[in-house]
């Protein structure tokens, strides 16, 4: 009985909310609670603040105000489904689901509902194959790019040869953590280095065995695909066993301030990948501060502005806003539909000039999207933690992945997916 009254309540409220949607609706599936809250909060702050800035500065996008609908997922797939279903009725234009589980969940759903999905540097790597996944975009880079960028960086450090080196991958024992294995195996064969896999079971609070193994085997480099508490513990344990931090590289989800600060000074020199640049002096931050924070429209308490994940959230919002602008340009209407936004994403072109114009010069690499390639350029930078100044310092410029290899792997996996699901690849 009880259930039915609840259902009706939900029904009516969903209907009421749905009717109010006249502006550009951007759902923000955030996770400010649960085990990964420390990562979810700054990202969501950045994502929302940028749209709020657009509203305050430009009156929205193309004259249409943006309405951000935040929905808390707690990084939990079932709550993610609830969030998706409750927001899609409001005319959601683009989803940024943030968790691997929710992404896999939403790939078929958004495809059926014809709403574009942007999984920026996470999710299903082979979704870069736009002909198989027309509604899914994972630009500017994916995990396989990341693995390749890391190896290219190491090649650079070792005068072009990794022959005889021993590289270990410390990974979260889940779909996410296992992503780079295939790529690294291929690269190991190509460059002649030994590749060791070291799994850490969720949640990763206890990594003594793994780090004793690293201490015993003394790999030259340790790459890390970690998440949540695993990152903090790994960095602390690396310091404990005396593993040189400058030979320890995390991927871009293992390279935020909160990953390194718990270990204090011991984390100095730790490396991580990033898909965007960190630069607190970008004009856009000043604008956010004055036009969003001081106006009292900020999503968070302001303490995260300029941090790694805040910047990434803002970058993601910028990419979404640019795609919407592009869609408006292509279709000639301001009040775009999800399908139009998809077209905008597929025609997206990010140039240095445009980024400079937006007050975030060089924040990301230049790239353009096409029907065949939803994955962007795959470039990444290597940044290093300076514990004394408590800041990340970019060590390199954007490094390219080994495109031929990655493209081959993507083609292989997406073809298999297409076959399993009776999809005929093609452009929309």
């Amino acid at each position: 009985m009880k259930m039915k009254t609840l259902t009706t309540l939900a029904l009516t409220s969903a209907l009421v909310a749905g009717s109010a949607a006249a502006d550009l609706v951007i759902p923000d599936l955030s996770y400010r609670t649960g085990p990964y809250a420390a990562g979810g909060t700054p990202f969501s702050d950045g994502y929302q603040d940028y749209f709020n800035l657009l509203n305050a500065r430009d009156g929205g996008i193309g004259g249409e105000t943006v309405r951000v609908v935040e929905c808390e997922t707690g990084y939990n797939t079932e709550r993610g489904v609830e969030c998706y279903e409750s927001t899609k009725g409001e005319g959601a234009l683009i989803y940024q689901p943030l968790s691997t589980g929710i992404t896999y969940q939403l790939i078929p759903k958004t495809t059926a509902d014809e709403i574009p999905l942007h999984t920026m540097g996470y999710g299903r790597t082979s979704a870069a194959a736009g002909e198989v996944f027309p509604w899914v975009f994972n630009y500017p880079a994916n995990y396989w790019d990341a693995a390749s960028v890391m190896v290219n960086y190491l090649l650079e450090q070792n005068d072009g040869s990794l022959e005889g080196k021993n590289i270990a991958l410390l990974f979260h024992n889940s779909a996410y953590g296992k992503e780079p294995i295939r790529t690294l195996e291929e690269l190991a064969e190509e460059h002649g280095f030994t590749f060791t896999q070291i799994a850490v079971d969720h949640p990763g609070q206890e990594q003594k065995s793994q780090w004793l193994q690293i201490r015993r085997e003394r790999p030259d480099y340790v790459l890390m695909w970690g998440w949540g508490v695993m990152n903090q513990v790994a960095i602390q344990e690396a310091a404990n066993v005396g593993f040189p931090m400058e030979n320890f590289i995390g991927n871009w989800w293992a390279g935020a301030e909160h990953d390194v600060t718990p270990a204090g000074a011991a984390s100095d020199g730790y490396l991580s990948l990033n898909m965007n640049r960190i630069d607190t002096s970008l004009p856009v931050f000043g604008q956010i501060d004055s036009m969003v924070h001081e106006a009292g429209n900020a999503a968070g308490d302001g303490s995260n502005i300029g941090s790694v994940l805040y910047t990434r959230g803002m970058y993601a919002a910028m990419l979404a806003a640019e795609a919407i602008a592009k869609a408006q340009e292509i279709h000639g209407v301001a009040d775009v539909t999800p399908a139009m936004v998809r077209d905008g994403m597929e025609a997206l072109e990010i140039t240095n000039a445009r980024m400079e114009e937006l007050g975030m010069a060089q924040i990301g690499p230049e790239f353009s999207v096409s029907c065949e390639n939803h994955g962007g350029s795959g470039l990444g930078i290597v940044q290093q933690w300076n514990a004394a100044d408590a800041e990340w310092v970019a060590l390199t410029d954007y490094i390219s992945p080994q495109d031929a290899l990655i493209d081959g792997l993507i083609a292989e996996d997406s073809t298999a997916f297409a076959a399993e699901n009776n999809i005929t690849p093609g452009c929309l």
Partner: protein
Amino acid sequence: MLYREAGDYKTSYEADSQTFPIAFDRYRYWFVLAVAFLVLPFLVNDYVVNALLLPFLIYSIAAIGLNILTGYTGQVSLGTGGFMAVGAYACYKLMTAFPDVNILIHVLLAGGITAIVGTLFGLPSLRIKGFYLAVATLAAQFFLVWLFNKVAWFYNYSASGQISAPERFVFGVAVTGPNTPAWASYLVCLVFVTFCALIARNLTRGALGRQWMAIRDMDIAAEIIGVNPLKAKLTAFAVSSFFVGISGALFFAVYLGAVEVGEAFGINKSFLVLFMIIIGGLGSIFGAFAGAAFLVTLPVFLKLIGVDLLGWPTDLVAHLQLVVVGLLIMFFLVKEPHGLAQLWRVAKEKLRLWPFPH
């Protein structure tokens, strides 16, 4: 005045042992079924089905299964998540290996496979009791999750380690995959819920159910009056795992469509289902439904109030949600220690005497 036994004389033992001995209950039961099968499919939308009904129905099956083991037989299990994973992966392997066989059969077979696995992990229950057994079932939970994560055969060697349900049809209507109409996935789950609830009810009111309850209430006395503890406990594990396996298969194939074992079937799932039957009421089929409804709908309900009505920040609401759920559990316990099902029974007893309580 309608709700009473007086005047509703039973003239046969069959009539006396039926599921709902009171006429009004029977009408209500048929009414609920009729609404669920004939009316709701025309009313529901994506949101109601995917966010509320599917999780409610699927968790109900799991809760019925666990209730048979824990509520009726007294064997506390924390392996539910692992067994749901068995159901899900069995269903996935069957779906991809025999694409032409009906998905409904796959789901049933997945239940059967889970029953076998569950029976195997039930063997220690012959020697280990109480909380010790609960912790022992955690071995099953962690091992199974690790296994499905580690052995690539289970996920058909896919690069991501995720399993995705391919599209399958029943009577020409898609029931899995992205193009499933909301009403179809709802009906499939409803059919399985009805089927499982009926079986559970029949088993628990009959000889097997009495054996289970005898083991639960006093295992030594049960053995002396002729209950074979091995058989009773293992049948409970088997039947329970059968249901849990079905729920896992539906959870994967119909509800989520894509899962990763550690995230979807981790230890949290085991706890969640256990909480459901404890809150709903141990040893009660209705309790399984009540508990599932409570834990599935309450957070959504609180979110609606907090975020949509009051406009609070989402993280505050999420934190308050935990506080409120915790407080409600404690409040219920202090007021009615035996769960929602007991609350319901007390309400019925009062109703039966109404309007002359003395």
